């Protein structure tokens, strides 16, 4: 793909780095203001996620609109308790999303199991199955917290660089990750 070769070529050209930075900024700006999450909620936090889309909090201000199909989504918000039976579908949905893709773990359950951490059927944190970019604490986090989480993700996106291979190929399979610096 052109995008993969483009940074290497530019870095060799004198003054190309400035051009590269500008391109980075432009591309990142596009990604930053166009984070489309999957309409996908697991439990209680999903209601707060719905509230964040709705009138008072209005996620659309940040350009965040839900997409029902993982193929058109950039972000997966794991909103709610992540149980073992759900692990396989979530992993599959994550792989169906096109790169660059991001994951927000919303709420204590998705972070570490939350109040259900000692249950026999709950995965203690979604980062045991898929990589996570932003963790939002709370049980459930308020919509403001979710919006703050998305803003943190925007900051992360602005640090992404074409040259490092960030954005195009992020192959982390689990754990927490920084999109700016690979896994």
């Amino acid at each position, binding site marked *: 793909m052109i995008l993969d070769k483009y940074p290497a070529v530019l870095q060799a050209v004198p003054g190309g780095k400035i051009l590269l930075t500008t391109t980075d900024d*432009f591309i990142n700006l596009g*990604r930053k203001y166009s984070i489309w999450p999957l309409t996908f909620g697991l439990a209680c936090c999903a209601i707060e996620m719905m509230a964040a889309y709705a*009138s008072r909090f*209005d996620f659309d*201000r940040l350009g965040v609109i839900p997409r029902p*199909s993982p*193929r058109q989504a950039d972000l997966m918000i794991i909103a709610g308790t992540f149980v073992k039976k759900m692990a396989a579908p979530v992993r599959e949905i994550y792989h169906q999303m096109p790169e660059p893709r991001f994951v927000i773990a919303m709420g204590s359950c998705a972070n570490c199991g939350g109040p259900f951490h000692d249950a026999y059927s709950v995965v203690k944190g979604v980062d045991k199955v898929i990589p996570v970019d932003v963790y939002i604490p709370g049980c459930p986090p308020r919509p403001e917290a979710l919006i703050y989480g998305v803003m943190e993700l925007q900051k992360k996106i602005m640090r992404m660089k074409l040259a490092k291979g960030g954005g195009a190929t992020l192959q982390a399979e689990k754990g927490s990750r920084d999109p700016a610096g690979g896994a």
Partner: protein
Amino acid sequence: MMPRSWPTEVWKDPWSLPRYRAGALWLGGILFGIVLISAVVGELCVWGEKLFAFLSHLGLSVVVVDWIWVLVKLGCVIGLIVANGLWAVWWERKISAHMQSRLGPMYAGGFHGWAQTILDTVKLLLKEDITPASADKVLHALAPVVAIAPCVIAFAPVLFGKELAAAKLDIGVLYIFAFAGISVIGIVMAGWASGNKYSLLGGLRAAAQIVSYELPRGFSVVPIIMFAGSLDLAVIDQAQAGYWFGFFPRWFIFYPVAGQLSFLFFLIASVAETNRTPFDIPEAESELVAGFHTEFSGMKWSLFFLTEYGYVMLASFLLAVFFFGGGAAPLPFLRFIPSWIWMMGKAMLMMFVFLWFRWTFPRLRVDQLMEFNWKFLLPWCFVNIAVAGLILAWGMR
């Protein structure tokens, strides 16, 4: 304002807030600005004639000049469709947001999220393009193109102002309907090639729906064609020039009974043709995930979106030409305003109606949709043609 700091201020009358009025003014201003820009562009089109003359004087062969000229026009139409996609999506998001007591995009680009769709496009261009493992690779790649190409072609005879069109065709109406119907092949291809059952259902639904609604769409404008006596859009436009009693525009929508019914039927059929709510069953978000474009990502997917908005614009222009006098001014003393402005303004108004529908109505079920078409819309279209005949017989012209 409330004495206490209630977290949600409950306004009995939002118009009493200066902020609210200012916002509405701004939005109105933006719409007006767009119309104005289009007006300037329209005026610049006069230079097109000069360009053509210049090209012919260069001493190139006629064939080459023709080719260059066609390419220029094609570029204009594609540019228009893309610009319309960018504009309409932003406009729709803003309109829907304000209908739903939200704000819509606010941050992208600074002022009221004006750059929202541009940045969306940047992102979509750089998204990974996925072809599912179970997909038919060739058809999957071809489908968006097959969907959008007829849309571009159909724009050839569309009137953007008085006698301003990419091509002057005597059978313009027929031509547009013929090509607009081809896009469904792209949609069915998309549904079939995705290797996804939801897509398949969406594609099948689209095939049934679009083919069925072709009929009432075509028959609903027969009265207009009878009134104008021609299939040429320019002639239809001209037929509505002038005023009754010196002030009442002779637009076809004001022709008694037949005009209004025809408008209604054409509007409904156009909404169904463009797959928008309440007839958006091929992509029915709550049932079929995303319908025929479930498995499309990145730019392939946005081509489908572009097609949808392209057809919305096509339908808006057709509505303006057929029923609202095209480039004619609503009142005689407003005739100094160029026809492009009236045309664009009317088309934008019609586009607003499309958006309005989308955010107000629930969705019909597939069999109800068919029943509505075959048992209600189509018979009444025929009745309407008879009514138009009676009107003509009584010398309405």
